[in-house]
Each structure stands twice: as structure tokens, then as C-alpha cells.
């Protein structure tokens, strides 16, 4: 299941004459999440630069670029990586604005929040820009925070680009082809199917409740109902797991998950791989020139 932050669409806030019920809001959120998974699939199936590449090559290049982003010291080189991924996103049919919003949202959440204390004189002493006693913001501290945040943005951008331009089924095929144990890939595939199925169930439960609600209910009643439904969904998921296992046994499952996945690389895949290696080496070389230790 692709995490919410990796979905293409942005939430579309709508104005409503009066506040919507809890059930309606939850059902809408779930419906939106399911729709976004299908949008991801549509984008991944559309013709674009990254979509044409072999998924294994994309997975190798993602590792190369993430390692490079981790080793780079210069803020400017990191910003250049973010700019390149944004350009690649545009060439792959992804809206640059939507891409930038997701990338910087990830960076703010995972990078800025975690590294904010490093901006203070308490952790990074130096030239004080904003005097706040031991929590004064220093120029050196701000640079450390900015570098970590942009590093996260660069890594997130590369990851999102691969996720958005590769169908889930192809990603799993690539993992199989790259010797990931079959049982792990099969578990990932089943997880995706079942999460989608359970999301539909939860959405319908909320809509069924909404359709029978005549008056507003309190937050406490909502909490009680949610607790009860969580238990129901847990029971249902256990039963579904049993049924799936029965269905596997019925077709002769003995513990092994052989596969017929055969991926073929084209000339463009090798060109892409070579370009990725050259780019990473060049970025590291430039980085060492502009930001020697």
C-alpha cells in the first residue's frame, strides 16, 4: 500500500454549508484514498520518460541516487538533485507543483521537525542570528537544518518519482526479479489487495451509518462506535486471512511461491543506468570541489 504522503493528488478542500458529520468525513477521506491509488496506477501506466524504463533499472537508480544524496555535503548540490528530480517528474507527466508540494511536505515532516533543535546554539554553537538565550538560532545551526531538510527532500523526490511512475504490479515483479524471496513479494501483493478490500468495507460502514443518522451524535458516541468497528474490521481481516489460506491450499499451496516473472531490458534502460552512474559520480565530484571537508 502506498503511504498517504506518496499519493499524487492533493486533498481538495470543499466548502460546505454546515459542518459534515464524522461518518461522512471519514467515508469521503477513505473514498479519496482509494481513488488516489487508482490515479497512481493511471499515471504509472501513461507514456512518460520514467514509465518507459524497466522497473529493476529504476530500483537500482533509486538506490544510487539516495546513496549519493546521503553522501553529498553541499546544500547547493542537494538543491540541484531536487531540481533534477522535479524536471524528471515533469517529463514523466507528473505535475511539478503537485510533486514539489509532496516532496517538501515530506521534507518538512521528516527533516525539518527532527533537525530543528540542531539550529539552536545549544546544539550548534556559532554566529547568532536570532538571540533566544540557549535556544538562539545560529547561522551554522540553520545551515545544518537546511541541509538535512533538503537531503530528505532529495531522497523523497527520487523515491516518489519511482513510485508514481511504476505500477505496483511491476514494482513487485522487479523485486521478484531482483531475488527478493517470493514469499515476501506474495505477502506484499496480498497486503495491497486486502487493504483495498478492507478500505471499501470501512467506507461502506461509515456510509451505512450516515444514511441512518437523523441527529448529531456526540464525540464520545463517535469514539465508541469507532472502537466497535475497529474490532469488527480486525475480526473480518482474521477471517479473510483464513479464507485466503484455504484458497491457497485448495490450489495446491505447499509453502513455495514460484513465479514466472521475466523482465527484459531495452537499450534505453542501459543508457539510463549508465547516465545514473555518471550523474552520481559527477555530483559527488562537484560536491567535493565546492564543499571540501
Amino acid at each position, binding site marked *: 500500500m502506498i503511504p498517504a504522503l506518496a499519493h499524487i493528488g492533493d486533498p481538495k478542500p470543499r466548502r460546505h454549508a454546515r459542518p459534515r458529520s464524522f461518518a461522512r468525513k471519514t467515508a469521503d477521506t477513505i473514498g479519496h484514498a482509494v481513488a488516489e491509488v487508482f490515479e497512481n496506477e493511471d499515471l504509472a501506466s501513461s507514456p512518460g520518460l520514467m514509465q518507459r524504463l524497466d522497473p529493476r533499472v529504476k530500483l537500482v537508480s533509486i538506490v544510487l541516487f539516495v546513496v549519493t544524496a546521503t553522501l553529498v555535503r553541499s546544500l547547493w548540490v542537494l538543491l540541484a538533485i531536487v531540481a533534477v528530480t522535479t524536471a524528471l517528474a515533469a517529463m514523466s507527466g507528473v505535475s511539478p507543483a503537485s510533486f514539489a508540494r509532496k516532496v517538501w511536505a515530506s521534507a518538512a515532516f521528516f527533516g525539518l521537525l527532527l533537525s530543528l533543535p540542531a539550529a539552536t546554539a545549544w546544539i550548534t554553537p556559532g554566529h547568532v542570528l536570532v538571540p533566544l538565550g540557549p535556544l538562539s538560532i545560529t547561522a551554522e545551526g540553520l545551515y545544518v537544518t537546511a541541509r538535512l531538510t533538503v537531503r530528505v527532500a532529495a531522497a523523497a523526490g527520487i523515491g516518489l518519482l519511482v513510485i508514481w511512475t511504476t505500477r505496483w504490479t511491476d514494482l*513487485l515483479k522487479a523485486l521478484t526479479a531482483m531475488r527478493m524471496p517470493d514469499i515476501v513479494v506474495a505477502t506484499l*501483493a496480498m497486503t495491497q489487495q486486502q487493504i483495498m*478490500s478492507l478500505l471499501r468495507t470501512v467506507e461502506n460502514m461509515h456510509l451505512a451509518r450516515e444514511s441512518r443518522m437523523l441527529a448529531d451524535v456526540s464525540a464520545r458516541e463517535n469514539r465508541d462506535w469507532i472502537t466497535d468497528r475497529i474490532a469488527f474490521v480486525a475480526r473480518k481481516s482474521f477471517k479473510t486471512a483464513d*479464507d485466503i489460506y484455504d484458497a491457497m491450499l*485448495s490450489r*495446491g499451496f505447499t509453502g513455495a511461491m514460484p513465479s514466472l516473472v521475466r523482465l527484459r531490458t531495452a537499450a534505453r534502460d542501459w543508457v539510463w543506468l549508465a547516465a545514473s552512474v555518471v550523474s552520481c559520480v559527477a555530483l559527488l565530484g562537484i560536491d567535493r570541489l565546492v564543499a571540501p571537508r
Partner: protein
Amino acid sequence: MSAHFVLNGVRLEYRAGVPALDGIDLTVEAGQHVAVVGANGSGKSTLLKMLDGLVFPTDGTIEALGRQLTEDALEEPAFRREFRSQVGFVFQEADVQLFSNTAFDELAFGPLQLGLAEEEVRRRVSAVAEQLRIEKLLDRAPYTLSGGEKKRVAIASVLTMEPCVLLLDEPTNALDPRSQVWLLDVLAEWKRAGRTVVISTHDLSIAEESADRMVVLSEEHRIVADGSPDEVLAQRDLLLAVNLIHEHEHRHYGTVHDHPHAHGHTHAGD
């Protein structure tokens, strides 16, 4: 005609003292098309799971393909392979049966478990996909398919094992009318090919159209009738008693009247 399944005095209790099946004596001959009908909760799905060696009786015995069907017997690789390749089960909910990455992987799963060569697996997948007209779905993830498409892929995933016995649990559930007609055509084709089919359903019209034998389960989880569809459907009082039909007043072409009524059944010319 040889028997594929022989059940003698079968009883199953999921909880002590609460039977899911009780006193079941049933023989399914090769090539028969049997419809197991009964109200919801009568034990139809449990009976099919038992025929597929997924649940086992608390009392009584089952013989399948000439051997006692027990957990121990299915532990033997040779018998398990023979049994699983000969008996195919289409589950009521297609979602539980579609656990692979793509529809192609789903169709290939069974043959690969049988240890068939890659060429043979690909030949079977291709042939069944063409037969069920699902070639365009092969590269798609199951969760992106519609209800009817999922059912087709679920049936195809069993057919690639080329079983001689097919068990179908509520096969018309969640199918639109066009897909139901398609399924009836598929069942008719299997009949011509001499395959043994056991379906469970509470839709009497499907049972009447597709089966040459009807077995009725009561709400007490016992077999209360076993005969041709014409013989069983003529027993109006019995069908009322087992909750398969009911009487209510309704309107046909401007005339209000009441008569026994089975859901899913149309009254042509009424």
C-alpha cells in the same frame, strides 16, 4: 459411472453440540451436475469446503477419488497433488481467491504449485484466458477489476489446473445479469465436456437451469431432498419449510395475487 465423492453419516461441529452439517449421506457420481440448495446458514458452503478437503467431519467418513479424504491423507504429497489437481474450488468471495500480484500470476499459481514446466503453465494460462475472454485483464492487479471480472479470473485460476471436478460456492453472487448468463453458458460447456460440477446456491433458477440433480439442505443442516430439479421443485411444501421459497402478495402485469416465490426467479408470462 464411478463415484467421485461418497459421504457417509457426516457430521461437523464447529462448536460442541452445534452442528454445521448433520447426518449427511451423499454420493456424487462422475459427470454429474449437482446443485446443493438451502437457505443461508444451512451448511452449503461448509459442505463444499468439506468436498475440497478444507474442513473435515467430526463424525462420519468422506471418500474422494476412491480414497478416504482425511487430513493425514492430504499430507501425502502424491495424493495431495492428485486431489488438488483433480478438484477445483471457486470460492464465494472472489476477493479471497485473488491473492497474487496480477491476474496472470493468479492463473499461473495452481499450475506452478503442481510443478509444471514453464511452457506448459504459459500454454494453460493462455488457453483459459482466451476461453473466458480475459486476455486483456492478465496484466492487471486483481483489486482493479470489477466484480464480474474478478469472478471470471477466480474461475480461470481454477480451470488452469484442468480439474475434473469443479466446486462452485454461490457462483452467481455479485454477478450482474449478463455475467450470470455467461456463467450458465460456462456451466453448460462443462456439462458437455463431461466435468463433474457441484454448485451451492440459494438461487433456484440457477440450480434449475444448470443442474441435473438437486440436493436440498434444511435449516437443521440435513439433506431433506435429493432428486432431479423437476422432482425437487414440485415439492412446494418442502421448499417452503426449508425457507427456499415464500408466499407473498405481489403484482404481475396489473394483477395482484399471491403464490410461492423464490428470489432470483422470474415468472415469464405471469
